[in-house]
Each structure stands twice: as structure tokens, then as C-alpha cells.
């Protein structure tokens, strides 16, 4: 029994120690594949911040948009994220500064139901669990979400690889603005459009979309919803619930249906049916910046 208690004590000390090391490394990290770009986003104020999932991450080139808009731009898109994550990140961002414009790249996946627990998508924000807003969001996931935070290593679960690699290599400077694209060109035929019905949308996530918009507006930021191009057959009409919400909150929608934007029809601009490649992102970022101006 004594040995078991000693082992537990040792585990506690080691957990705290490694947690401190991870805190230190994370604070120095500006880049990584598990959301470490958040540090770069918070490090200095930006005029325009892009939110969204992998489509946002791969479509908005701050380097192209900034000179046209004469404003600093940061792409805070993160692959596989949902609106819960975006809302948490927005809370965190607004605790640091208020950008002039928030662009939300709308993807149906961000607000549709899935088998996975939507709160699991908050994991890139775990290192910021001490922030009251972030903790409130994590705690909404119930005891299953909060109990592991007894460990100080857990907030960095799956991030140690990034912490070590990106601290050692530091392959992107502080000037990094969040774009993460690909030069691949799509090889397969485009997909049919995914027509979600109203019941496919998760009411919780739609509610958080509303909170996301209202929070930004209440702090004086202008919100725009953009549906960036995708190379699929058919169109992707916004669901009625979301359209009603955008009308109610007076949020403009800028979309890019291929029928109206033939300049985005070439397969050469896409890495797959849902994502532009670097060439496509360059073309889209320039077009969007001109439209915004």
C-alpha cells in the first residue's frame, strides 16, 4: 500500500513537471499541426481574421489579401474543426484584441450532426484551459471532458510531437499568418453535391453559430460569411435555418457558385472536390480581397 501511494505521488510530481515543460514549450510555439497557430494569432493584433475548418485553412492566403485590403490578415482556420472550436477561439481572441473584420468560411460540416462528440473538437484549445471562457466551453462537455484535466499533461495530449518538432525546427517565423495549403491537383471526378436536409443540422452547433456572430458584433467586429469555391457537381444552398440566422443578424454572405464564377471551374485549381490547392487559393484570395475592398 505504501508503495502504491509512493508511486501515485511520483506520478503526480512527474505529471506536474512535464506539464510545466509543455506549458513553456507551447508558449514558444507559433506553428504546428494540432492548433499551435493560435499563439501566432494572439501574438499581435490583426485587422482581418478568418475562421473555419480545413477549407478556410487552405483557401485564404493572408499574403495575397493583405496588400489589396491594406490591412493585416490572419488565417485561423483549422482542419476538422467545428463551430464550437471557432466560438472558443473567438472568445480567446477577443480577450486579446478585437479585429475589424471576422470572416467565417461556412462549411456544412461545421454545423452538421456527426457520430463524434462535438465537444471533442475543442482539443486545440486545451492548452488554454485556464482561460475562463475556454474552460466554460470545455466544461459544457460534462465530467468526461473535465476529469482528464486533473492531469497537466493531458491538455497537451497529441501535441508533444508538434511541441518538439516546431520548437527545434522553428520552420516558420513569427510573421506566419496561418495559411496551410497544398500543391496537389485533384485527380478524380468531382463529387456530387451533398444536400443536407434541415434535420442533418445540429441545433447545438447552429446555436453556437449564432453566438459566434453575436459575440463578434457585440464587440464591434464586422462579420462576413463566405462560401469559398468547391469543385463538386450542383450547388450547396445554405440551409434555411442558417439563412434565417444570417438575415436576422444582418450578416452578408459572399458565395462562389461555379455557375456564376466560371473562373473557378478548372480542376487545376483544386486538390480535391472540397479544397482549393495553392494555385486556387492564390486566385480565390485575390478575388475575395478585391470583392471585399
Amino acid at each position, binding site marked *: *500500500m505504501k508503495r502504491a501511494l509512493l*508511486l501515485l505521488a*511520483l*506520478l503526480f510530481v*512527474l*505529471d506536474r513537471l*512535464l506539464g510545466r515543460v509543455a506549458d513553456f514549450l507551447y508558449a514558444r510555439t507559433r506553428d504546428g*499541426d*494540432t492548433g499551435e497557430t493560435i499563439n501566432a494569432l494572439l501574438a499581435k493584433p490583426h485587422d482581418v481574421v478568418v475562421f473555419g475548418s480545413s477549407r478556410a485553412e487552405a483557401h485564404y492566403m493572408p499574403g495575397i489579401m493583405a496588400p489589396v485590403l491594406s490591412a493585416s490578415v490572419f488565417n485561423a482556420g483549422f482542419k476538422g474543426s467545428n463551430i464550437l472550436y471557432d466560438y472558443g477561439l473567438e472568445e480567446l481572441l477577443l480577450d486579446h484584441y478585437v479585429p475589424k473584420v471576422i470572416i467565417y468560411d461556412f462549411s456544412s460540416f461545421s454545423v452538421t450532426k456527426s457520430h*463524434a*462528440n462535438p465537444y*471533442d473538437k475543442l482539443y486545440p484549445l486545451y492548452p488554454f484551459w485556464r482561460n475562463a471562457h475556454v474552460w466554460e466551453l470545455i466544461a459544457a462537455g460534462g*465530467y*468526461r471532458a473535465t*476529469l*482528464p484535466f486533473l*492531469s497537466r*499533461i*493531458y491538455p*497537451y*495530449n*497529441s501535441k*508533444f*510531437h*508538434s511541441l518538439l518538432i516546431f520548437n527545434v525546427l522553428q520552420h516558420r517565423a513569427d510573421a506566419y499568418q496561418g495559411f496551410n495549403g497544398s500543391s496537389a491537383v485533384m*485527380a*478524380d471526378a468531382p463529387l456530387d453535391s451533398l444536400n443536407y436536409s434541415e434535420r442533418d443540422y445540429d441545433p447545438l452547433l447552429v446555436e453556437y453559430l449564432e453566438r459566434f456572430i453575436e459575440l463578434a458584433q457585440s464587440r464591434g467586429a464586422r462579420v462576413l460569411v463566405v462560401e469559398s469555391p468547391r469543385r463538386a457537381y450542383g450547388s450547396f444552398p445554405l440551409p434555411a435555418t442558417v439563412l434565417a440566422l444570417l438575415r436576422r443578424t444582418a450578416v452578408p454572405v459572399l458565395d462562389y457558385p461555379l455557375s456564376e464564377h466560371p473562373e473557378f471551374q478548372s480542376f487545376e485549381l483544386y486538390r480535391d472536390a472540397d479544397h482549393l490547392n495553392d494555385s486556387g487559393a492564390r486566385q480565390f484570395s485575390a478575388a475575395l480581397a478585391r470583392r471585399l475592398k
Partner: protein
Amino acid sequence: MLFNSLQFLIFFPLVTLLYFAVPHRYRWALLLTASCVFYMAFIPIYILILVVTILIDYWAGMYIEARSGRPRRVGLIVSIVSTCVTLFFFKYYDFFATNLSALGRLSGAGWTVPTLGLILPIGLSFHTFQSLSYVIEVYRGRQRAQRHLGIYALYVMFYPQLVAGPIERPQNLLHQFLEPHAFRYAQVRDGLRLMLWGLFKKVVVADRLSIYVSAVYGNLSHHGGRTLILATVMFAFQIYCDFSGYSDIALGAARVMGFTLMRNFDRPYFAKSVGEFWRRWHISLSTWFRDYVYVPLGGSRASWQRWCFNIMATFLISGLWHGANWTYLVWGGLNGLYQVGGRSTASLRLRIHERLGLTAWPRLRNVWCAGVTFALTCLAWVFFRAPSMHEALSALSRLGDLRAPLFTADAKELTYGVAGIALVLAMDYWTRGRSFEAALSEQPVAVRWSVYLGLIIAILAAGVFNASQFIYFQF
């Protein structure tokens, strides 16, 4: 309830504490209640299937024991048929209905058989096989019928092995419920060690590998040979770590309370032939098929043709046991063919080994044989993992296309996965056939504690915590 969930982290210590706190005569009731709670955490209503199976086989056991001759056989048949009908209805009906409808379309007859779309009750194949082994053993006179309904129900429902085995035999498990188990520090320690190692294999290795494997096998048509080979090798270790991890947690949880369950894995990827692989992989199922299908068919003490039939029949049924899909049937058939081929070419292979000089280097020969066995096993895993026959064949046809780029979208998962595989293989090599906890016991305290702390920290730092299901739960 999943072993890798926070619910279980609360459930297990609570049940264990209560188990040692209550007098022996009430322990069966406690464990039975806990097992019901454990099972009902999935789909509560499906516990009724277990209740029906238990009642039929409980009655059959006593009926068979009390009679001789024809009525005895009738009792056995009633029990087997009722159990198999349940299994067929929930697991195989839709498969047969779909195929009959397809046959109707192809033949022009145009008949369609409606499907039911039922959700497969979790662990159905496991507890039905455990029930069957009881009735068969009573029929064979090797096991006394259990008169205590609660104890018999516990034999079928004992929560550590209820949903994914090991598939126990009544001779090994039933009597353990009647014996008083005192709290013993050594058995609690050994059980917890095994659970820790099992949890590591599941959440750090298997669930990490599954991210890459699912990304590839979810879009098979997008990938070339190198990616498919890598994903298949990773799947071989994913399924090993997933299932052996589950088995270790099951064995460990039972050990903490003083129960000994049968070992389910013995370093399968060190096997030097496919036959040996099946003596090391999912041992409780392999021996079940050996004892209740292969041997009754005549086993190996038969003519060459009959032996081929026996082995093929056993492996085809084993394939079908895993799932109602042609892919599982082909997977089983392929493993049967490997064994037939292995026996047919034994002398030829020996001559080749002699020519190559491998017989003079037994270790090198072992490595060669283990490598070939692993490659053959991986080839069969393609069918096991692919969602359909069409996709499995399409994947196999592209295995040779080595020009296509390697899919490395998530380098992190690959890094974690390869490191995890290396660690599991090193541990398997180091234990050399002993169980993990036995091998660890022989080490000095500094090594043991480093292993405990290292595993816990690895689970916290690199474990996948969204409580994904164990692969074998679907069977």
C-alpha cells in the same frame, strides 16, 4: 460500457471494492448486477436476448444431464438450434436476404427478400459461443450442469469477458464463481499491470494507427501500392493491439478480483507458419473451433482430402463468425488455403531452405518464416478490413503500383504509430511467451516503476481519448 471510457474508470474500482466488501454468498449477485449494468450501457433492451439465451441453455444443461440416449441429444439440438437462430436472426439474416435478392435479380426471377436492418447486439457471437460450449460440455459429460441460475447467468455474463471474450469454457470459469476470493495484493497488482498494458496498446497504439488506416481504407480508390501496403501493415498491428489490448484489460480486471481467464494472444506475429499463427491468435476462439468443429469433423486423423475439407470448413465458418460479409468468408477461406498449401508444400519448402542455406542458420530461417507468415496474414487482412469484396479486389490489384506517392497527410500519426508498433514488438520479443505481468515481476523495482510511469504518461500524452469502440465488439 467501454474499457477505455471514463465510465469504466469509475465503474471498475467501485465494483471491485464492493466485491471484496460483501460476503462471498452475495458476490455472484453483485457481479451479475454489475455485468447487467455494464451490458446495458450499450443498448439496454438487448439484454433480453441474453436473458432468453441464458434461460434456454440453463434449462438445456439440466435436461441433458438428467437424461440419456435420444432425449439427451434432443436437448442438445434444441439448445444449439435456439442459440444459432438468435445469432442468425440478428447477425446473418440481412446478409442472406440481400444475397438472395441479388440472386433473384441476376436469375431474372425478380424476387426480393426484405431486410430487417437490426443493430447487431454487442458481443453476440462471443456470449452465444460461450453458452454453446457449456451445453456441449454438459452433453459430453465433462461438465456438471449448473443448478444455480444466477451462477450460470454470471458464467455467460461475467462483465470482463462479456462483449469480446476470451470465450471461456465452463471447466475453467464456472467453478471460480463458487470459490471465495480473498483480497490479495499480488493478484491486484498483477491485474492492474495487465490492464495498464492493455490500455496502452488500445489508446496509444491501436487508436493512433486507426487514424491512418481509416484514412486510407476509407478512400481505397485514391491510393497506390505503397500506401496500401503501409496501411495494411498498420492495420495488422492495429487489430492486434486493439484486440489483445482488450483481452489484457479483461484478464487484468478479472485477475484483480481473483479470477483467472484464459490467455487469448501469444505473440502471434512471431509465428513461423499460418498454423502456428492460429495457435497464437485469438486462442479462445481458435480452440473453440478446434474442439467443437474441427475435431468432430475428423480433425487431422483423416485422409488428405477429408483433412482439407475439415480445415477449409472450419476456417470458412470462422470467417463467417467474424461477420456477415463475403470479405470475412474470403478471409477465412484464405487462411484455410494457407494451411492446406503449407502442408502440401512442407517438403518443397524444406528443400528450398536447404538450397538457400537457411537450415544452417536456424535464427535466420525463423525470421524468414515469420516474415513470410506475416506477409500472408497481411494479404488476408486486406479482405478483413476492406468494406466490400469489390474494394478489397481493387486494393489488391493496385498493391503492385509502387509509383504512386505514399500518403503522408498526417505524419504525426505515422510517427506515433511506428513508434507504438516498435514498442509492442519489442515487448513481445522481451516477454518471450511469458505474460506481460510475469515478465515484469522479474525486473528490479526501478525498471517496474519506470514502466508504470512511462505507460501512464504515454497514455496521457499520446492516447486517443474519444473512447472509440474495440474492433471485435462488432462481432
